[in-house]
């Protein structure tokens, strides 16, 4: 990451100029993407106030059972746990519209493996408001019997919402599962994160069993050639992370230091 990008890493504020004392609990979650103001939520969702739209990404329902079908008996509770978070967001923000930004279902057979209580919870969510399933690479054809409508992309408040990154101009996308590893004095913390350059925003994955890709990994380079701002999900709020604190992964499949 380039040092000269440091100031760009500051959160941009909607109306006020830089306040004297930072309203720490709120300010960092307010982001500007192109001409739209969005709020990054600590649960991993995105709130677009102007359109009263809640965006959630990469829910990967039934990831656990997809492993079980191949002989690794992961707990079958991931869908329920993910739904609990989505339901809480819906209760709190009362959206008129919810967009699930693709890879909502871990695979093509996922909907068939849903337990009936989980399927019922999804139907309840989709029936009470406008619900849009964006097509993902894991679920190119999201199931229709659970309610909601399927779109390849959708435009809201001047933003394009899509699963895979596109041309990067005023877009919200998912797919990459960004994750930040942050060095502290006591230890390192790894947490899901929003990544943006002010024109494009990549959402964290919300599926309970989804892994993450370190934001320093090579996959993010072409998306943010001039640097990125990382907003990491804490327990109760989203933190804007100083780029100097970010560290790379060296775990399986992760990125390497470049020689």
């Amino acid at each position, binding site marked *: 990451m380039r040092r000269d990008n440091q100031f760009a890493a500051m959160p941009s504020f909607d109306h006020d100029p830089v306040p004297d004392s930072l309203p720490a609990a709120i300010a960092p979650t307010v982001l500007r993407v192109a001409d739209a103001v969005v709020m990054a939520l600590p649960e991993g969702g995105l709130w677009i106030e102007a359109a009263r739209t809640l965006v959630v990404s990469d829910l990967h329902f039934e990831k656990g059972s997809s492993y079980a079908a191949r002989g690794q008996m992961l707990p079958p509770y991931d869908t329920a746990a993910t739904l609990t978070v989505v339901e809480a967001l819906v209760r709190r923000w009362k959206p008129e519209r919810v967009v699930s930004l693709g890879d909502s279902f871990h695979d093509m057979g996922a909907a068939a493996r849903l337990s009936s209580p989980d399927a019922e919870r999804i139907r309840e969510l989709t029936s009470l408001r406008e619900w849009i399933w964006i097509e993902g690479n894991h679920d190119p054809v999201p199931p229709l019997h659970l309610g909601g409508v399927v779109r390849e992309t959708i435009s809201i408040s001047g933003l394009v919402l899509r699963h895979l990154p596109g041309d990067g101009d005023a877009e919200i996308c998912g797919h990459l599962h960004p994750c930040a590893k942050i060095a502290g004095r006591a230890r390192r913390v790894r947490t899901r994160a929003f990544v943006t350059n002010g024109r494009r925003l990549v959402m964290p994955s919300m599926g309970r069993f989804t892994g993450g890709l370190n934001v320093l990994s090579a996959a993010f380079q072409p998306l943010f050639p001039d640097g990125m701002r990382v907003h990491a999900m804490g327990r109760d709020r989203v933190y804007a992370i100083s780029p100097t604190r970010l560290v790379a992964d060296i775990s*399986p499949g992760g990125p390497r*230091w470049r020689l």
Partner: protein
Amino acid sequence: MCLAEVRPWGRAGGGLKKGMGAEILQSNVLPQRFADWFASRGWMARPHQLALAAAGLRGEDSLLIAPTGGGKTLAGFLASLIELSRRSGPPARPVLHTLYISPLKALAVDVARNLDAPVTEMGLGVRIETRTGDTPAARRQRQRANPPDILLTTPEQLALFIASDHAQAFFSDLRCVVIDEIHALAPGKRGDLLSLGLATLRTFSPGCRFVGLSATVEDPAALARWLGPEAHVLQAPDMGVSPQVDILVSRERIPWAGHSGRFAVPEVYEAIARSRMTLVFVNTRSQAELLFQELWSANADGLAIALHHGSLAVEQRRRVEAAMAGGALKGVVCTSTLDLGIDWGDVDLVIQMGAPKGASRLLQRIGRANHRMDEASRAILVPTNRFEVLECRAAEAAVEAGELDGPAERTGALDILAQHVMGRACGDGFALTALFDEICSAGPYRGLDWETFERVVDFVATGGYALRTYDRFHRIVRRGDVWTARNAQLAQQHRMNIGAIVEAEMLSVRLASFVGGRGGERKAVRAGARLGDIEEGFIETLVPGDTFLFAGRVLRLIGIEEQNALVVPTSDPEPAIPTYAGGKFPLSTFLAERVRQMIHDPAQWPALPAPVREWIEIQREKSAIPPPDHLLVETFPRAGRFYLVCYPFEGRLAHQTLGMLLTRRLERLGARPLGFVASEYALAIWSLEDMAGLDMGRLMAPDILGDDLEEWLDESFMMKRTFRACALISGMIARRQPGAEKTGRQVTFSTDLIFDVLRSHQPDHVLLQAARADAAEGLLDIRRLADMLSRVSGRIDHQALTRISPFAVPVMLEIGRERVAGAEVGEAVLADAEEDLVRDAFGRPGD
């Protein structure tokens, strides 16, 4: 010296010299051919060797306890060799007669080599082969079709056999199983796995006998129970001379804290120079690296001193071992990798750096010197700090008194049980009740109840989830009464993941070689010679350009590529020292008891080195010396904070657990604790409020264990690591999968995510139960803490002091302080990183 001549009967012959009174027994047991062979060597079989052979020929299960150098290994094979020598002609079809299992691959190979001499010289025509993870696939297949008479292998290979087709037929003619170094195998999960394997062999071949070979242990009967319900103990008479143990009282000042022993290096070096060949034992790999480096810089005479620990590349270890056996070395700095019974050469001195932590371990290590029973072994203990002086003294006294300590008998782990159940299904299959009976015949599982067994089987079949969600994905299926793996692929996946050891993620350390780079072009870097493996967690703390100590060299990290950490040799006076998870032994309860006695009894003080004696005397004057069954608690203010220090002497793990529990309780009492630090001997807690007014008896009441333990445990990092091991061992997650064998690092799924979800949705899941049991047993020393708390109940001596006491100094100097409120630390790190950003951007006043 040629190894084949000296093993397995111990150096200079494991037999007695003639005329020592065992002739009668010998003539009854040994066939002429064997007696002649012993005679041709000028030896006579020892009574315990003959007794074990006789028991073997009667088909009895036996545990032989003999000190190092007692000719155990030959004893274990005698009955088998006799039986095989009585065969009239080759068998109709080749069958396996004897299976030998050792904890180390190297030991199996060593024993095979050493058995060769008698077998060849007596012309027994017995075929002996080894089978380890290194055995080529072609030979393994051949061994299955055409087994040798004697097969030498490891516990993992046995589990693999059992999980293969036709396992029952392969073992049906097995007559004897020999388990070597059984005292080293039995106390862990590998021992659990092996005990289940032995139970299966007992089913497959009811006529088979089981022979355990063990070094001297505290409780032979417990080890015999592990071996089998009917195993007898055979004890070799202790003909050895008491080892000669000295404590090095350094000319230098003994430090208050720390474990490096750096101050004693010149004296250690002198001792090496004076001896023929010295083994220097240290307790951790980091210590090994550090000490080796220090010795090397003190090495004015260019003595041949080498380094040996488990993280070094195999080739490098083999080179050191060969040089030792060949007498080419003066000294080797080593960790417990050399603890076990391989006799590498002519060692005449053992130096133990730091306290040995247990009398039995010390004896094992001393046994490396003068590997024969009729000569005294020579050992020097080098305490690295003041408390260790006491501990070394206690260990020395214990060795003199011939007392031993040992691990408590364990209850078999459930993740291992799950692995075994799947293994049985992948082999010939099992019937439920028969398998239950079989498992209950394995020592560690004899208390298993049917309900737990059913839960484990259900876990293996469908994951053991409450709603039976995965009923259609059964991993094992029932045909008639027999459960087998659902398909060949699942069986293959299981076989690829057998084992009880979950290694930390490791990277290979390789020398970087540079290619190209002429004319201002950037050089390309390639991975060159491999120096060994290092824990990924350690490398993660470095950035390229940092230096660290490894394999006895100072290395500079160039970068990471694939699974390799690329390095170049460099010189840096202060390289980082790698830390390794585990590898630290807690002080044995038994030595702790001796240390407490010693401190309490002024009559023993004059035997201590002057600085240590003075230290204890000043402690008595400034604070108090508690009676051995009391617990001293001190409180004092210091630098604007208030301290509480107590001295349970129960080991770092138990103290850490106590520290966590006490800080939680103190928080509720409004003392506002800030942190704590635990050492092997003491625990110190600091807070914002004065703790002197608290009721210490109430604070330390044993009910503290019920308070927060479970909750804290579940949130702890340790618990997640433990759960990961359980998830891998039990087969919930497969480390390796068919078609992806190459890298060997296939855990693509975060077990932390599973843990969190399972905890909130099914807190009584069998795998959580397994992980909690592991944590309570091994990681937190809860049992020990509970014993201590009930022992000192009503016997707390509180000293409210105005300043720090002499005893408190070492623990206050300890590193590895824990901050209170671990769950908040993550948020603090995030907030901190954000603060940084704000500071950078706004340039806050004062920055």
